[in-house]
């Protein structure tokens, strides 16, 4: 495609150039990034280990020190449980408040007149 491009290329053909190179660059950069994380990072961590501990180990041994059983699903379950615990402790209550008149039976303890008349 690029062979056909000359100085007088019109917009459409330049568009095709951008289409192809653009897609190629997007793909290649994300492929590089994924390769970096597949192979590069374990290698870097390995180097880091060697520098800090001076201990010779195979890449496979150190590659990624993570618990194989502790998967993302476990994390999700735990975090859901914590979220539920923190945010949903209170069940939904009816927001309508009703003020009920409590019927007071007469009590001499709160009566002023009782206090004034029946002095001890």
């Amino acid at each position, binding site marked *: 495609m690029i062979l056909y491009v000359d100085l007088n290329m019109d*917009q*459409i053909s*330049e*568009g*095709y150039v*951008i*289409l192809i*190179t*653009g*897609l190629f*660059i*997007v*793909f*290649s*950069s*994300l*492929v*590089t*990034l*994924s*390769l*970096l*994380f*597949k192979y*590069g*990072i374990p290698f*870097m*961590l390995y180097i880091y280990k060697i520098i800090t501990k001076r201990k010779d180990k195979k890449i496979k041994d150190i590659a*990624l*020190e*993570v*618990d*194989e059983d*502790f*998967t*993302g*699903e476990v*994390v*999700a379950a735990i975090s859901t449980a914590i979220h539920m615990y923190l945010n949903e402790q209170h069940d939904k209550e009816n927001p309508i408040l009703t003020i009920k008149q409590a019927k007071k039976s007469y009590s001499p303890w709160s009566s002023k007149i009782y206090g004034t008349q029946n002095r001890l």
Partner: protein
Amino acid sequence: MKKLFIVFGIISFLFIIKPVLGLNKSPDSLISNNSIFTEQVDNSEGEGVYDGAFDGLKQFYNYTGFANVTWGHIAMIFIGIIFIYLGIKYDYEPLLLIPIGAGVMIGNIPFVAGNQTGIYEAGSVLNYLYFGVVKGIYPPLIFLGIGAMTDFSSLIANPKLMLLGAAAQIGVFATFLGALYLGFNLPEAGAIGIIGGADGPTAIFLSSKLANGINILPDGTTVKNLIGPIAIAAYSYMALVPVIQPPIMRLLISKEDRKIRMKPPRAVSQKEKMIFPIAALLLTTFISPSALPLLGMLFFGNLLKESGRTERLAETARTKLIDIVTILLGVTVGASTQADIFITKDSLLIFGLGAVSFVIATMGGLLFAKLMNLFLKGDNKINPLIGAAGVSAVPDSARVVHAEALKSDPHNYLLMHAMAPNVSGVIGSAIAAGIILSFLG
């Protein structure tokens, strides 16, 4: 009694200085005052006063929205109300649609030009706020917040899913080509194409650089200002992800494929999470330096989150900062749809192209996921549905994938897997924007 004197004193003082204040009126109104004055001399005094009052009312009426309204304004206000309705009733990205809907109404209140009211009038408050859109200031700030709230661990655990984010960018470039065929020139077509990335901030960023109505093309013409239509198209299609994507998924992915279960992603160590933003920042910006404002801020935000030492900064970036910027962005983008500038044939074409690009992007992701499955074996097979999450509408498209998978198998939880192509779609569309910018900017 003393108070009464003070009040009367103030009122009489105001009466005295009234002519002084009157001098501040524009020359226009002074002339009209004079004409009223001459009328007063000619006619009897009482009639003149009524005439003056009537003229005043008429002048006031000419300044109201009722006198200046056009069908365009009414249509746009109606669209704004629809946005708000969709946001409230169907919960389609209400955080975006409600500010934008309110902005559409604000921007389409009819007014008399020349009083520094409208968003396109230099010196108006809305124009100052719109500055952040025109100069591409808001999008990187939004990306900072997105970086500070995104967890890249599912991507680090399964790096090959990054390819799905790249595959969905086919939509960007296909639309770019389509726009060229429809007669848009190169920079405009580039800005329109990025709608296929389904990433609002990226679309605004790119259109503010390419189709801003300021740049001058080689042949001497000025590019059109397409920021408003492109932003509105990008955000409305992002909000419509739950409507657009499921039919395409059902069309392209067979029932059996939809039931594929993926093995849970491995746990990712903190060290890897810290290395990710640094390595990705260096790598992606070295490849595509034009995307630096977007990708730099994205990974900087993520570093704030993962470093473990800057929790305060990360907290601000992912809550208050992104909220403030979203409010300003939403309202000004909405208000930029002023009817006389927005309702054109180009806007309609952009909306059409946007829909097509969204469909192509989704299809690209899905088909590429199927293609990858040909090379993967047994346990490593991926569920092709997650390809649709490669369009970067975070996290809505991942949620749609999850919901769609649950429909065919109620125990297939794809959300975490779908987040990987989803965030890589953000990176991919930012890189694509950078490439287009470096070609056409």
